[in-house]
């Protein structure tokens, strides 16, 4: 057992971008680090809840006159800066946190202690919500050319693949097994999306172990079978999502890419998405740039450029567009791979399907898509998201990039998605929170071994239970029917920095009134009004006592959109019980004040007046407490 310093008083919380600070008490619990502002009424006190799993690094900075600074960076892009008065306390906090944020085994993760007060049946129902075999049925699989195979039922052919896989009818088990032996980590070509209209398939795999000259007849047969399964096209595309140079380098290690001479009728294509190490460095650089105080436009734009982040985002979107065009316009089947086929391949396959199929742009469909292309096909969430104390070189924001790409598309097509960015941000939050079982571990096999379905809860049922928070009020299903395939612009000027993701906790950066929040409120009000109108009409000419009752009850339930009430500033559907109400003190529009924006420090003869008390609306916190 280690020493746990559970309560430290008189701690200062410094604002990241201004000179403001709040004083309060730090509490350390088994799951959270909690800061509660002191000196104000409990209803308006600022609270900051940080889940230990969200912490990516804790740094003790050198001692200052006011105390010992502790800098905490989180995976959800929150950065908090505490100053602890006594060095001893700071050290205790620091070492406790270090121990807490590096669990060594999965059963230490929050998901195993998290209890939303559901019974076993509700839990089971939550897990049954997403059914991938139903999803393949929706696509029209099995069919005459594609069928289910039990070749991987013991995870013997490929331990990072799911049990249930779909392959061409013409690919016999020996061919599959042979092909898997010629592919990195045994990840043979398997179906991930079927475009029924043109009978074109999207398959995924890892790189072939071709080296400089090796070939494998079973693998060649496998690709032939995929090609033959599509009567509409003579050829298939093989998309290697890596830069050509990386693929060439792999040949020296006995891996590599398909030799067009050995495979009949393939069209081979590199698309040049960088590897996990480049992506990790890119995000790190990006966060450094946008985390700077008093950032100039020049430093911002040059930093954005040199981080390469938007260039990578564009490369992924470009690849997805290539895939979508090949399938929908040419009717060709496509085989996608990278090195191991669980990072770039997952990005491109899922984003491509999102462009082709409006179903994936619904709330439920998006969950299915993530479950299929990311979770079941073995994107290594545990490694990439650093769930356990692992190899830092394995950590990479591959899934974050996918969400970023989806957001870019939603900006170009405001009516195409049933969900809003809050949904994406909330998913991102929980990919790292380890509060639900969905994203734990690296593969389906590991998840089964840990009996996650029995011991943890599913995020999806939780998200669906508060679906109204995540809906995009502008979504049009009719539009999706008219234009099912999205054709986004690939011009660089249409790719933007996603402020609400990377600055989700930096309130001063956000629009001060949220359009999305406003529209959701209006829509909710309309629903209530519809009901009210209906009731009022139904009552019609009934007797007076009934009327009186209705009038009295309606006056209390009918929402009014009072104009003078400014809207809360944060895009925060997650505010729940236990969070501070807004203060009644003097205020400008919510969260908008002159000094926190640092237009200029007006010192000298005129001492700056105290700002009105600011209320903190923390994002994502309420859910941690349930």
């Amino acid at each position: 057992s280690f020493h746990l310093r559970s309560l430290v008083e008189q701690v200062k919380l410094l604002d990241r971008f201004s000179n403001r600070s709040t004083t309060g008490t730090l509490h350390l619990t088994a799951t959270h680090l909690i800061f509660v502002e002191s000196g104000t009424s409990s209803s308006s006190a600022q609270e900051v809840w940080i889940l230990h799993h969200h912490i990516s690094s804790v740094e003790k900075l050198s001692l200052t006159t006011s105390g010992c600074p502790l800098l905490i960076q989180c995976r959800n892009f929150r950065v908090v800066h505490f100053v602890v008065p006594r060095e001893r306390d700071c050290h205790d906090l620091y070492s406790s946190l270090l121990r807490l944020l590096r669990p060594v085994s999965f059963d230490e993760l929050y998901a195993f202690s998290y209890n939303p007060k559901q019974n076993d049946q509700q839990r089971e129902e939550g897990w049954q919500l997403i059914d991938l075999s139903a999803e393949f049925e929706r696509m029209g699989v099995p069919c005459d050319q594609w069928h289910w195979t039990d070749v991987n039922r013991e995870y013997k052919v490929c331990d990072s693949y799911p049990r249930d896989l779909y392959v061409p009818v013409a690919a016999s088990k020996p061919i599959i097994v042979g092909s898997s032996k010629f592919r990195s980590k045994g990840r043979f070509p398997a179906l991930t999306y079927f475009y029924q209209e043109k009978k074109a398939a999207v398959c995924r795999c890892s790189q072939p172990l071709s080296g400089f000259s090796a070939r494998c007849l079973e693998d060649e047969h496998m690709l032939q079978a995929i090609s033959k399964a599509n009567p509409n096209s003579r050829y298939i595309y093989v998309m290697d999502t890596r830069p050509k140079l990386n693929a060439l380098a792999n040949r020296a290690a006995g891996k590599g890419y398909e030799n067009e001479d050995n495979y009949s009728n393939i069209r081979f294509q590199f698309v040049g998405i960088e590897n996990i190490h480049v992506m990790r460095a890119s995000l790190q650089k990006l966060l450094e740039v946008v985390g700077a105080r008093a950032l100039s436009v020049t430093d911002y734009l040059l930093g954005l450029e040199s981080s390469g982040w938007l260039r990578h985002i564009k490369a992924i979107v470009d690849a997805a567009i290539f895939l979508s065009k090949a399938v929908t316009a040419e009717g060709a089947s496509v085989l996608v791979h990278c090195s191991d086929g669980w990072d770039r391949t997952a990005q491109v396959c899922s984003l491509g399907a999102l462009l082709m199929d409006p179903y994936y742009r619904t709330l439920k469909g998006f969950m299915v898509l993530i479950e299929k292309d990311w979770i079941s096909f073995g994107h290594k969430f545990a490694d990439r998201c650093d769930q356990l104390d692992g190899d830092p070189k394995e950590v990479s924001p591959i899934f974050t990039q996918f969400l970023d790409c989806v957001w870019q598309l939603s900006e170009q097509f405001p009516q195409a998605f049933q969900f809003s960015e809050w949904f994406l941000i909330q998913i991102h939050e929980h990919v790292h929170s380890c509060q639900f079982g969905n994203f734990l571990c690296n593969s389906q096999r590991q998840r089964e071994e840990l009996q996650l379905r029995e011991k943890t809860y599913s995020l999806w049922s939780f998200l669906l239970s508060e679906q109204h928070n995540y809906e995009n009020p502008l979504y049009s299903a009719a539009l999706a029917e008219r234009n099912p395939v999205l054709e986004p612009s690939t011009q660089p000027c249409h790719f933007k920095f996603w402020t609400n993701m990377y600055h989700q906790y930096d309130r001063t950066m956000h629009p001060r009134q949220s359009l999305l929040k406003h529209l959701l409120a209006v829509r909710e009000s309309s629903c209530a009004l519809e009901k009210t109108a209906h009731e009022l009409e139904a009552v019609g000419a009934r007797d007076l006592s009934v009327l009186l009752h209705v009038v009295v009850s309606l006056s209390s339930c009918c929402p009014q959109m009072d104009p003078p009430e400014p809207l809360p500033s944060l895009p925060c559907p997650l505010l729940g019980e236990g969070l501070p109400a807004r203060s009644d003190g003097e205020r400008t529009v919510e969260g908008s004040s002159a000094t926190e924006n640092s237009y200029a420090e007006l010192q000298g003869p005129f001492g700056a007046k105290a700002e009105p008390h600011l209320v903190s609306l923390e994002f994502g916190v309420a859910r941690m407490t349930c």
Partner: protein
Amino acid sequence: MEFAELIKTPRVDGVVLHRPFMPTVEGTLCLTGHHLILSSRQDNTEELWLLHSNIDYIEKRFVGSLGTIIVKCKDLRIIQLDIPGMEECLNIASSIEALSTLDSVSLMYPFFYRPMFEVVEDGWNMFLPEEAFKEIETLTDEWRLSSVNKDFGVCPTYPQLVAVPKAVDDDTLRKVATFRHGGRFPVLSYYHKKNGMVMMRAGQPLTGTNGRRCKEDEKLINATLRPGKRGYIIDTRAINVAQQAKARGGGFEQEASYPQWRRIHKAIERYNILQESLIKLVEACNDQSQSMDRWLSKLEASNWQTHVKEIVTTACLAAQCIDREGASVLVHGTEGTDSTLQVTSLAQIILDPCCRTMRGFQSLVEREWLQAGHPFQQRCAQSAYSNSKARLEAPVFLLFLDCVWQVLRQFPCSFQFNEHFLVLLFEHAYASQFGTFLGNNAAERLKLKLPQKTVSLWSWVNRPQEMERFLNPLYEPNNLVIWPSVAPQSLLLWEGVFLRWNRSSKCLDEAYDEMVHIIEYNKELQSKVNALRRQLAQLETGDGLLETP
């Protein structure tokens, strides 16, 4: 002069028009004195009416006998006309060139335009200085309207009536005018109801290298301070630029002479630099390269977003001095007709909820830009495609609109007007059938007899059927001061202007319509429920039983 002399070929058949994100149209091209018209003549929908004054630059290309004219417009659109016949093409091109660069203002379209609508409220009389001052009079008696500039003799770029401290007489004003650039003595720009603080604007003081003083100037601006209070002077130039101005007879207020004032320098660029910035930005936006790095570095090199940030920050600073520090403010740069107005007008948007209404914003543009003497005609003579070496042209007003858009984006429910209105003002400042933005100042407008001879933009825009398009469906009056974020992450490229022509607007337009629909539907339901409630209440009291709603 007859326009006919300039039109060498009035009509060409078989011309093909290419426009961004629209199907090509083949039809007849006609040139009139003020318009370039292309009509397919098959159905009336496929027509292009382009004001010659909207044309910024044209390029000619020839392939065999097929000529192509690329027309680059001041609203940043680029269209292409394929014209069969080399001679026709050359004639059309030279005619367009001549017609789009007419020297005489009185030949401009507004003098020929006859409205197809009835003018209900004449825009020329909507925002008279005496009307605007009436409201201030009800709040304070410390200010008066002076007619010292009745004949534009004291300051050629000021209107005939200006608001000045009551304690200062006209003789003093005349003396102060000789000490300020262009005669632009300090005048009232804004009165902050909440605490009685004021914002004034002026031209730079002419201190020169010997540090010349003007007692009357000191008296005038001190007269605006409450006893024991101090104020801020916001100089929109960087300190070194202001220092250099001394050598040319200009300068800034020395602490010794103005002990009750604290001077703050901000660096808003001058107009010729802004023009270059616009040219670079538009070039970057039109670049067809797929390289992200190239786009970001070009965007950065244009410096446009830096200018936006600088202006918003300075306006916020002025507002902060007035609202948070409870101090009065004097704003000036060099002439007091460009960056000064950007700051004073934007500060009012932040401070004063009235300026965020449709009419209030028009009044602001009228007061702080047109009457305040921003030289629209000089600044908006050319836009981003001109390759005449920038002289007096500059997107000063466009930058202001961009800044307003930034604030509007951050406070989407606090403005009565929408983005379309800002885009409309941009278009009309550069080319218009209305006389509002003609001339450089009140004196010129009077001389040109604009109110008699042309129609005001406001007369048109305020007709209910037009205004509807420019109203923000999300608007809920908000009496608070709105402090925008000035972090680079919070300031976006104004796509509605700069990327308007290189994307299809269909998706965004449809989304906007859907938003309007959601809000309209809610309003309908609310009035329906209210009506039903009234009905029930009447039933309840018994006396409504026989009435029908």
